[in-house]
């Protein structure tokens, strides 16, 4: 029997008075492409950031590949993991940010090999050839020696995807990967993500691109006010929403 790759159970998160997540529970299955949609402030980005522990949760638990994230249970109490252990857990996830966050003082190639060489301690030559292959995969084979400032937004985001893939993650997290892009550059990034989805990668994608969700997502999750309102196939949630709030959101964005 297969187990979910990510199991999120009763997760809550407050930022001061504001409750960003209200006892959210969710499973992501191996190979699944899940799109999280919703208005800004609905908690979808927070949920994504909790999965790779850029945000710590207040209560509940998240299991990745069967392993409890951030804390360890012993004798009915939870103990926080060390920074090193948390960094180790992060290696299983790759993260793509809305604003790319490429390292501006490093070339595209250096951005990609930084993690495998510095963190995983792998051999530079071997990683380099893999990085060139990844650049080819995202359509940027000729840009290996370009600095981020010399690349367009769409190219930067594709390098960022390659950087995340270089760590060989079992789960890719995308936080509104096309929201900071000029409209004509969105397509090239979505094409890379689509190819990735077809290759069998498990993906959680926070997005406003409903067209992408409709075409690629195995499951669409609509969130509002820190809770999951509706979840199901793209056809159901986007095409025939059951909840009034989902209907209102969809009619507002389309």
């Amino acid at each position, binding site marked *: 029997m297969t187990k979910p790759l990510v199991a999120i159970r009763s997760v809550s998160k407050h930022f001061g008075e504001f409750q960003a997540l209200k006892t959210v529970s969710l499973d992501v299955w191996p190979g699944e492409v899940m799109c999280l949609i919703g208005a800004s402030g609905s908690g979808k980005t927070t949920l994504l950031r909790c999965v*790779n522990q*850029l945000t710590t949760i207040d209560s509940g638990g998240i299991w990745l590949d069967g392993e409890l994230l951030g804390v360890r249970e012993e004798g009915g109490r939870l103990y926080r993991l060390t*920074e*090193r252990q948390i*960094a*180790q857990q*992060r*290696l299983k*996830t*790759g*993260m793509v*940010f809305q*604003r790319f*966050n*490429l*390292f*501006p*003082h*490093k*070339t595209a190639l250096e951005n990609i090999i*930084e*993690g495998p060489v*510095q*963190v*995983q301690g792998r051999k530079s030559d071997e990683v380099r050839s893999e990085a060139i292959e990844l650049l080819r995969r995202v359509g940027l084979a000729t840009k290996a020696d370009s*600095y*981020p*400032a*010399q690349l367009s937004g769409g190219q930067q985001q594709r390098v960022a995807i390659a*950087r*995340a893939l270089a*760590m060989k993650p079992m789960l890719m997290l995308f936080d509104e990967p096309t929201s900071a892009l000029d409209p004509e550059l969105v397509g090239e990034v979505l094409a890379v993500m689509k190819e990735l989805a077809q290759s069998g990668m498990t993906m959680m994608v926070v997005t406003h691109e409903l067209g992408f969700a409709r075409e690629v997502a195995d499951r669409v999750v609509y969130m509002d006010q820190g809770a999951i309102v509706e979840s199901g196939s793209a056809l159901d949630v986007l095409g025939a929403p059951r909840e009034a709030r989902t209907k209102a959101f969809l009619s507002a964005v389309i």
Partner: protein
Amino acid sequence: MKAAPALAEGFPDLSGMHVAREPHWFRWLSAALIVVVLVAIARAFAGGQIEWSYVSRFLTAKVILEGIVNTMVMAVLAMALGIVLGVVVAIMRLSPNPVLKSVAAGYTWLFRGTPLILQLLLWFNLALVFPTIGIPGLWSARAVDVMTPFLAALLGLGINQGAYTSEVMRAGMLSVDIGQYEAAQAIGMGRLRALRRIILPQAMRVVIPPIGNEFIGLVKATSLASVIQYPEVLHNAENIYYANSRVIELLIVAGLWYLLVVSILTPLQMLLERRFARGTLQFAR
């Protein structure tokens, strides 16, 4: 609606015409005035009680050259100590650990809060507080023997510089986007590795101009070490004029050397800035 005509009439053709140069009368006038004042000052000094032959004679005197070498050695070593301390203290200051934070804040408060000359005198006179220093049971020595003018000047200048440099470094680290730190974490980096590999290299670009500023200040601050007998250029110049009474001449000698050193440092800073500007648009193309 009527179709718009190709282009409306009544606007003369200006192509091929240039904007006339402005006369800038005021610039000419003020420049002339400044030249007059400079000539007057030069005449006054030429006719004043200055033996210029002494200036040129002592400019390359052995003791003066040794002095400027000592000045530079001290400035470079104290700056190196200051940068090491500054980076460490800035990292402590930005750490989530309240103990490290307080220690860093206390250090900055103490050494920025007292005059440098006082700190130099305290280090030099440490023997009055601790006649012998050392590690109990392993090693000990008389403080007067250990605390030479060189060591006192290095500790005084370097530790004081560290307090200022830490604030420059902190500003540089804060100037790096938080997303850079998150991206570093996302590829599995811990805090210190992210600082070393990602944050500090980017902060360097921002901190080099103020660090250059600090270093130029430090080159001149080494002259304070003359009060604790460190043989830097001003101290040596003073020793000469105690003997021959050519006070102004030797002060001019020292002044010229400081000017020369600072003039050399400025282009060096430009080279360093260029090195750390990697990846920014202005130099990438």
